């Protein structure tokens, strides 16, 4: 996707163990550096969650990795095959679901390609529907299918569960965990939900002042639950990193 563009976002050679390499990345808005000399390496097949307070630049970082923001300084190396799922599903309302899934794929892919991807997210029966008839959860799953059909080496998720209701969110999180385990691609999940990050990710990053301020592996056994041993400790550490004061003794 990005290879033929002369921006600083360059594609790296295949067969590297790293899925993303960022060195000295700076992105300024009107002279204010939102990302300020950021360093980051994501390994292939790793599920990483990026936490941060609102406005800390985490979404900007994701847009840079997606190649959507090229007003940058520094080195950014990303895989050629990458896909994004946004907070809003962003389906083209004038295309039926399966056409949305195939949008932008090279060549002339058949409807069956879209349908197998939709099947994977449990949406095979809505393949011929207009986006306006989908529920919020269905639209988000269609958006996920659209990302997966590209067989990405790097899947970028920008708060994809943010707009879903609590019950749908739990199912969507489980779905993402399943898909990641099946596909084995590197995932970067941008979120502000600490529990979500700890439930899904191998590694949690906290972004602050334009850099990765905290980087911790999550060694919990899968499938995870909120009550697992070690969960509460990690959770309170991350909340402290995010600047959230908590009551002295959490009673769990």
């Amino acid at each position: 996707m990005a290879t033929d563009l002369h921006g600083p976002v360059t594609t790296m050679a295949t067969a590297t163990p790293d899925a993303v390499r960022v060195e000295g990345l700076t992105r300024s808005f009107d002279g204010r550096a939102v990302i300020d000399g950021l360093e980051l390496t994501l390994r292939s097949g790793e599920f990483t969650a990026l936490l941060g307070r609102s406005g800390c630049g985490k979404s900007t970082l994701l847009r840079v990795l997606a190649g959507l923001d090229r007003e940058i300084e520094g080195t950014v190396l990303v895989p050629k095959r990458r896909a994004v799922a946004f907070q809003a599903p962003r389906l083209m309302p004038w295309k039926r679901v399966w056409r949305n899934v195939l949008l932008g794929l090279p060549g002339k892919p058949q409807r069956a390609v879209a349908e197998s991807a939709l099947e994977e997210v449990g949406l095979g029966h809505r393949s011929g529907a207009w986006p306006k008839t989908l529920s919020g959860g269905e639209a988000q799953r269609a958006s996920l299918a659209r990302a997966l059909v590209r067989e990405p080496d790097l899947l970028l998720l920008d708060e994809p569960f943010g707009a879903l209701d609590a019950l749908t969110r739990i199912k969507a999180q489980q779905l993402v965990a399943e898909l990641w385990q099946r596909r084995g691609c590197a995932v970067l999940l941008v979120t502000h939900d600490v529990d979500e990050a700890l439930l899904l990710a191998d590694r949690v990053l906290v972004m602050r002042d334009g850099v990765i301020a905290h980087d911790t592996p999550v060694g919990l056994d899968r499938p995870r639950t909120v009550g697992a041993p070690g969960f509460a400790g990690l959770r309170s550490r991350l909340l402290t990193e995010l600047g959230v004061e908590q009551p002295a003794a959490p009673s769990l």
Partner: protein
Amino acid sequence: MTVDHAPPDISAKSGAATLAAPVGPALEPVVPAASRGGRLRSVPRWLRRTVGPLVLLALWQVLSSTGVLSPDTLASPGTVARAGADLIGDGTLPSAMAISLQRVAVGLLIGGAAGITLALLSGLSRLGEDLIDATVQMLRTVPWVGLIPLFIIWLGIGEAPKVALIALGVAFHLYLNVYAGIRGVDAQLVEAGQALGLGRWGLVRHVVLPGALPGAMTGLRYSLATAWLALVFGESINADAGIGFLMNQAREFFRTDVIVVCLVVYAFLGLLADAVVRTLERLLLQWRPTFTGQ
């Protein structure tokens, strides 16, 4: 919520609604949509739409037959119908309609092509916008009817000035609405298209143009209305054929019945054009999640 707080003896109360007043708020039934509105709603929509014109027609007939409306002012519907039948019978009206329709079609085609091309150029690129938009915005403030004398000087009194007038009116409406449609496309969708790997042409084809379609349809409606208007103006100057010519002739002989026939034909053609656009909209914009009335 109310269920949680409801006292356990519901069954005792439900029988005696009058006694329940101090216990809770007054309840009113939520009527299902199907049973609402009564008989007028069960009439098919196309039939309901004809009610207004029919009432108007009846009123006109009543006024004519009671003598309130003298035949010199406005012929009665009956006379008009007879005049219409005569005009159709001797072939005057069909040939006039054919000529007028042809003028509108050619004008629409030329004006549409010009308007849409300019809108695409200025809508899709910032360079195009800088070069085209200001110029078009300036020109469109000129009342195009005022250009008739110039058109006659430039193009003579044949078909050209009439078609040019129609094309001009059509071009501005289409330009404005297609341009606005393109610029009104959700930037988030464009970004999503970029993230999916669409190139510049792919974005235009799959995201921008479909997104501009509702605007284009609005433009088409306006431009059709303008096309008929321009036709009336164009045909009232030096025409030797067409509906406008028929009307001018009738004016000279004080034939209000023929004038009304021509007006009815204009209205009918306008309705027909509207029906075409409605059908197009139903086919092309069925994806749109918009309010369609209750």
